[in-house]
């Protein structure tokens, strides 16, 4: 047991080294200074309190997306449609704010309703993928991908159509909400402890849901072998739909946070790729909730750290994506290599 844990660690270490090596190679091909780039990423992400709070702001939606995905992965589902679920969550949240911003309700209540609205929107959009899968036989990967593009077009249509700024519609989004409808942040910072707290509560909840409950156990059974679970009396499709809905709730919450905390309006790229990044984080932690938070933090740090690369080193900021992708790829490959060697020994 102990032995296997050590080999596991060694293989993962090799994966990390290979990923760093590959990324360095890519930079050399691009005639970029690798050490300067890595240094810039580190300073740009944890070099100051402002940077760390930026990382935490970016960590929130990423952790929420990963949290939701842990549920669908446990049920054996590839919820690639999470980007769209975040987007529709943001749309619903904006909708609630637009409906109630003129009303006499206390702002705290409006904010609460907007959060709930976001969760509802995400859940409904996720259920759409789920229903297409369970009743229409449409694989969740293709249904989800298609719905992502549909969600994007709904979002764009709203921004350029019914919800456009007075005067001219633009890619910069809808008109910002009044400050009373912003979720409170720390003084002098854009970091909201509310958003951070909700994300942390979510991951803890899901950790216990998957680990310590009857529901989690049966969900695992559905994910491992749906047919066997069905024969043992687990209502399979209901569990699949429940997994989609739960994931959608967290995705929608993430979308709502983007509106209420970060942008204070609806923008075209409101989900910012956090859904896809969440899929990568979930794969990297091998679908286990325990490591989701630190790995998501690391990925968020890479994203924030690479923002200044174009300015300082004239490099494209997608370098963080290259590093994240190679990391997940090599971890998957080393996992396979370890299993292959394990069989032979």
């Amino acid at each position, binding site marked *: 047991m102990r032995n296997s844990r050590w080999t596991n660690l060694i293989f993962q270490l090799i994966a990390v080294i290979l990923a760093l090596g590959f990324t360095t190679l*890519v930079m050399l*091909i*691009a005639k970029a200074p690798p050490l300067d780039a890595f240094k810039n990423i580190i300073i740009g992400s944890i070099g100051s309190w402002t940077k760390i709070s930026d990382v935490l702001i970016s960590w929130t939606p990423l952790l929420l997306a990963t949290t939701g995905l842990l549920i669908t992965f446990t049920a054996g589902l*590839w919820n*690639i449609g999470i980007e769209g679920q975040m987007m529709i969550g943001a749309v619903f949240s904006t909708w609630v704010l637009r409906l109630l911003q003129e009303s006499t309700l206390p702002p705290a209540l409006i904010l609460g309703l907007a959060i709930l609205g976001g969760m509802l929107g995400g859940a409904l959009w996720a259920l759409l993928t789920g229903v*297409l899968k369970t*009743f*229409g*036989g*449409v*694989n969740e*990967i*293709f*249904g989800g*991908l*298609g*719905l992502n*593009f*549909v969600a*994007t*077009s709904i979002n*764009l*249509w709203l921004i*350029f*159509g019914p919800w456009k700024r007075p005067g001219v*519609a633009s890619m910069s989004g809808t008109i910002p909400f009044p400050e009373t409808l912003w979720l409170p942040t720390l003084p002098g910072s854009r970091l909201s402890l509310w958003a951070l707290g909700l994300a942390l509560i979510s991951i803890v909840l899901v950790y216990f849901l998957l680990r310590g409950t009857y529901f989690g156990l049966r969900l695992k059974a559905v994910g491992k072998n749906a047919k066997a679970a069905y024969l043992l009396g687990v209502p399979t499709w209901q569990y699949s739909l429940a997994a989609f809905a739960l994931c959608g709730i967290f995705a929608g919450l993430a979308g709502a946070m983007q509106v209420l905390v970060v942008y204070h309006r609806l923008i*075209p790229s409101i989900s910012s790729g956090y859904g*896809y990044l969440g*899929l*990568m984080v979930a*794969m990297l932690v091998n679908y286990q909730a325990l490591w989701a938070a630190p790995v998501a933090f690391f990925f968020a740090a890479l994203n924030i750290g690479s923002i200044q690369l174009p300015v300082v080193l*004239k*490099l*494209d900021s*997608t*370098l963080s*994506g*290259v590093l*994240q*992708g*190679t990391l*997940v*790829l090599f971890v*998957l*490959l080393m*996992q*396979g*290599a370890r*299993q*292959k060697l394990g069989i032979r020994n």
Partner: protein
Amino acid sequence: MTDNCQLTTANRQLTTMTSETLLIGLAGVLAAAAPVIFAVMGETFSERAGVINLSMNGSILLSAMGGFAVALNTGSLLLGFLAGAGIGALVALVVAFSSITLKQSQVAVGFVLALLTRDLAYFLGNPVMGQPGPRLQSLPLPGLSQLPVLGPLLFKQDLMTYLSFLLIFLAWAFIFRTRPGLMLQGIGERPAAAFVRGANVNRLRYFYTILGGALIGLAGPIYSLSVKAGWKGTISGLDGIGWIALSITIFGGWNPIRAALGAYLFALLQWLGLALQPILPGIPAQVLQVAPFPLMILTLLLVNIGDSEWVERALAAMPERQRRLAEKILRALRAKPPAALGTTFDSE
């Protein structure tokens, strides 16, 4: 009287003008579908062999950038296309190695590669971004291009578009009319049976995945050296094409002819979206460009729904004549994936 006559002439001119622009538009649709056809045929080969290459979206972007960069630096279009095919083959090799040899999830590795190769394309493509580069010239076929209607439609295209026509029929004939094609179907449907008949299942899967990857990789330079010449980074407008190609593969039911129809339908819709824009000013361009996606979901639904239990129950409750008709339609639309798609094969 004269006035009237002039009016008729003008009218006639107007109609010939529009039918000419229409013809040019449709010829453009055929050209715009060419890269999609290469990608879809590549994916069809790969999936027929049992391997899903989910990396397609990023693969096309990286090969588009790579092909453009190589053609720009060497001045050789041929090298550009070869570079694109090479990049696609290399990405497919990673998919094949991790899924066939290391037995990792094809979906997981493919998805990671889709994102990774996309980011690589944007990162490495930074220096060549926005530069004017070489472009494939159109190659009107002597004689044939003079034909009325068909000439401007089919025979004033560039080389890769002609090859895309050819590829559809070659792929179809290979899969359904040759012995190796039969074996290809076998390793995707019943690998164990193919193995017993002497096929080296995993080696063939490697071969077809890499061949498919090379075809997918050709789609990239067809964009960057012809259809949407140049490399413009994130605004190249290529992000998403691979995902569409993936769904067209399914819509095509792993049959090259039907898949080609899907590709042309998609290209037609995109063109219509742009052509209709002046008529529908209230709808932003971004919305019209994603119009094919709801349709894609709908087609996937139609392709698959015939297998659902509740549909069968609903059909059973229908009156005889309507049921027959409904069953006929569903059967015509239905497409079953290769039975062993996404699974690994062990000869032991």
